[in-house]
């Protein structure tokens, strides 16, 4: 068999194994009243893909190339991930990436470390060794044991390739590449089964449960312990589930999960492509953007994970972490005692009380992200605050609106954004939305489009009085306090976290559960980790609508003994 023919064969294997998955990804539709929400098949986000590869093969594996872009739906990538397919170009990218990873794994430099065994002869097939490696890696990548059929396919393909190419490692590489390009890896398909404990109800199966848990709490694959708990059935018992969740919450990997959720909720996927006018903001560069995201995520992780703190405090805390690059834009002193020429260091920093900084809304990541390339935007900031932090919907501007007055920052009659927006609001069509967004955003006007501080705009003193849902404030720090005290912020984060975990918007039948979660959140003094725990240990989190016949028939899945079956 030629190498080309072999490649076609392996590719065929991949498509055959996952063909069903390509046709099963229909966008989630709201369930009928009283019916559980559907289990969602989600494509791995780019971050998750990278996390899994690092988890399975170590951080030395380089990911070269681009993957299909993540898609955001209902304000979350994790929800968008359940509404996407893969284009043919995207599949080609996944395959290229897969081959690149596989060749690195079996390279002479790393093979001894990666493979648990050595072939009897490196130029010949060795089914036992290939099986040992592929079965182990396959169970991690697919988040479940390989089916007997899958195991046979991958090991056979590796053997045939090794014989043809006279290279054991080339054979293993091809099979590994096929696994990495398989929909079983790229998509988190959740299998549904009848719940034996509740007649007439359905739940996701144990391995799906393990996977949902691990991506929810760690943003990565289940570890061996969790897979074992799935296999033994422990995960389907309340005690077993509680034990696993408690273990996972105590793990340092929890921080990854918390960071991933807030990066998603805050829309940080837009940061890498954030562009600023370098004439106006010459210090705002790629390093600034990277560090700005990290600053906010570090701060959140510190408050919510390290200190097991109150979610509301992320809107008011003056404690944060900075690099020298960031400190220069914040215009604060930050000494790096590393040798000259050393890289910037992350250092804890507390903004002074009179700095106007406090909470994530005064971080560069929020201020710069929700600004225009060449100027700040009270409207964008107000809109983001309402939509991202309070889960309120701000309507899009009507068509054919004349923005000339707002955009002309050189008009001597309207020196400040407040003056320009007040003039703009004389148009009643615009006033409706602007009165929702602007009073919040205007209080952040002491921060320019790059997030740096300013007291004046075009020589005029900036007025930072504002209001949010009836709470008045006079400065930027007041905005954070208003969000801190706003019940909508708490309800919002709880709902977002539920949607993030489920991969879809909650359905009506889940309303009571969500309400209970919010009450528990309040009872736990708004400790975010407690909210995660409550969600992860809820039976409702794993409940699912009965499987659609087409979607389950197409995807073969193993039962707990590893045998293939169609679950009903």
């Amino acid at each position, binding site marked *: 068999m030629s190498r080309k023919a072999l490649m076609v064969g392996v590719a065929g294997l991949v498509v055959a194994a996952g063909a069903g998955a390509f046709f099963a990804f229909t966008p989630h539709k709201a369930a009928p009243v009283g019916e559980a929400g559907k289990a969602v098949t989600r494509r791995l986000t780019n971050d998750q893909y990278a996390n899994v590869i690092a988890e399975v093969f170590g951080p030395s594996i380089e990911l070269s190339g681009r993957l299909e872009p993540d898609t955001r739906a209902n304000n979350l990538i994790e929800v968008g991930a359940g509404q996407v397919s893969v284009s043919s170009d995207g599949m080609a990218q996944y395959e290229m990436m897969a081959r690149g990873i596989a060749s690195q794994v079996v390279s002479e430099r790393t093979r001894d470390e990666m493979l648990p065994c050595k072939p009897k002869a490196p130029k010949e097939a060795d089914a036992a060794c290939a099986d040992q490696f592929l079965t182990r890696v396959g169970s991690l990548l697919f988040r479940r044991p390989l089916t007997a059929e899958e195991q046979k396919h991958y090991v056979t393909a590796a053997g045939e390739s090794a014989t043809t190419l006279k290279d054991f490692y080339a054979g293993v590489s091809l099979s590994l590449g096929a696994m990495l390009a398989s929909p079983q890896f790229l998509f988190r398909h959740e299998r549904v089964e009848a719940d034996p404990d509740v007649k007439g109800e359905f739940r996701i199966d144990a391995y799906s449960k393990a996977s949902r848990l691990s991506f929810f709490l760690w943003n990565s694959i289940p570890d061996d312990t969790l897979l074992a708990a799935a296999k033994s059935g422990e995960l389907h018992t309340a005690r077993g589930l509680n034990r696993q969740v408690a273990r996972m919450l105590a793990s340092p990997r929890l921080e990854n999960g918390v960071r991933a959720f807030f990066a998603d909720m805050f829309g940080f996927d837009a940061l890498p492509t954030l562009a600023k006018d370098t004439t106006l903001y010459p210090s705002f560069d790629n390093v600034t953007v990277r560090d700005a995201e990290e600053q906010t995520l570090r701060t959140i992780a510190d408050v919510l994970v390290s200190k097991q703190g109150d979610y509301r405090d992320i809107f008011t805390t003056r404690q944060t972490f900075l690099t020298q690059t960031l*400190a220069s834009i914040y215009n604060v*002193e930050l000494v790096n005692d590393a040798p000259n020429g050393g890289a910037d260091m992350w250092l804890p920093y507390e903004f002074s009380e009179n700095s106007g900084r406090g909470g994530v809304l005064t971080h560069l990541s929020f201020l710069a992200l929700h600004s225009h390339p060449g100027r700040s935007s009270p409207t964008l900031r107000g809109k983001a605050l309402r939509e991202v932090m309070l889960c309120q919907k701000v309507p899009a501007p009507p068509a054919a609106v004349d923005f000339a007055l707002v955009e002309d920052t050189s008009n001597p009659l309207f020196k400040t954004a407040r003056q320009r927006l007040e003039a703009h609001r004389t148009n009643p069509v615009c006033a409706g939305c602007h009165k929702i967004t602007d009073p919040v955003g205007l209080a952040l006007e002491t921060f320019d489009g790059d997030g740096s501080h300013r007291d004046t705009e075009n020589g005029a003193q900036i007025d930072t009085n504002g209001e949010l849902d009836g709470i008045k404030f006079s400065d930027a720090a007041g905005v954070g306090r208003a969000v801190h005290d706003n019940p909508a912020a708490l309800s919002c984060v709880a709902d977002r976290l539920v949607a993030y975990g489920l991969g879809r918007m909650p359905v009506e039948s889940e309303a009571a559960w969500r309400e209970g979660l919010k009450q528990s959140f309040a009872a736990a003094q708004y400790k975010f980790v407690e909210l995660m725990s409550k969600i992860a240990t809820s039976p409702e989190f794993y409940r699912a609508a009965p499987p659609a016949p087409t979607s389950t028939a197409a995807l073969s899945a193993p039962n707990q003994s590893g045998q293939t079956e169609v679950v009903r």
Partner: protein
Amino acid sequence: MRWWKAVLLVSASLAAVSAGPARAETRSYVVTMFWHALETRDDDCPNGINPKIEVQYQKDLELLGYSKGEAAELIKQDGERGEDSNRGWETDKLGHILIDRARVGGKPVNAFMHPYATIDPVLITKTGKYAHGFNLDGKADAPGNFQNPDTKETGIDHQLARVFGCFENMRGTLKAGSAFWLYKWSSIKETMPAWTISVTGADLSKDGPVTISVGEAMEAVRYNGNGVGRPNMTYRQDPDPAFAKNVYEGEIKGGHIKITKPGSLYMEQDPLLFPVFSMEKFNADLRINPDGSLIGLIGGYQPIKEIYFAVASPSLESESNYAIDFPGMYYSLRKNADYNYDAKMQSNRNISAAYQIMAVPAHVAPATRNTVTN
């Protein structure tokens, strides 16, 4: 005196005592651009500028005793060697002659290390009456003094302008600098310890007396992607006592920060290219821009030895690249030096000089603080 008046008087006195002096504030900067303050004018070099280096080398060879034809042949042969990859230093006949064009005890020695032992090729120097700088000696009309082309102030001491004024690569404008200085500065700016300037006064938003200190940082200057100095970075102050003396009385007046009582300056730049930068009667006049940055002049009497070794970076390659005959430049420096007479040398050791600098706001912190916690 009525009793209540007495009480008021005592109270007022006590209040005055307890209030004490107003708290001083400090604003710091880091120097982001540096070049020789030379404003080229059309009438600077009425006899032309110094020739290209090949022409200058022809002259140097003739001074060494080679005939016109022999010198031309040596230069021609060297040119024919071109970029031949087999060209080796061992066979670089012209290179050896030029490097060792100094004579000590009749023996050829390195001319860049012993410029005084060469024959003065007598380079062309700047004439004219205009140059930027400072009146360092307080005399308004001393011979050789310049006039500021903008303010028309007379008595400007800037003899370094004469020395450098007629080299093609050093000619330029105060605003944009020259090819030579831009090259030099870009070579060192991201590796040399940053220069910091700190201004302390009661209220820096108003005119009034200030204290100006110039120091060195432990770090190099940080720049933005567009090449402009990044403002508001934090720099650690080098605690070396050599820099601690760089403190001057000054003032803020009319949007300028000025030294009013000049003193000595000791600084270091890049250890390879500009090892030491020192001045006597150090002076500064820096304009405060609307964005808070500074631009302006520093000046004083600078040792010619430091200038020579900094500019010459003594090597034949530098000499060829910069098209400056270094031993000739040495003689020009010596002939135009105007301060600190050395009887043994029978010439002055220092020359009046002025440099244009730009600086951006920065945070300057003590270097001894240990704030690394992660």
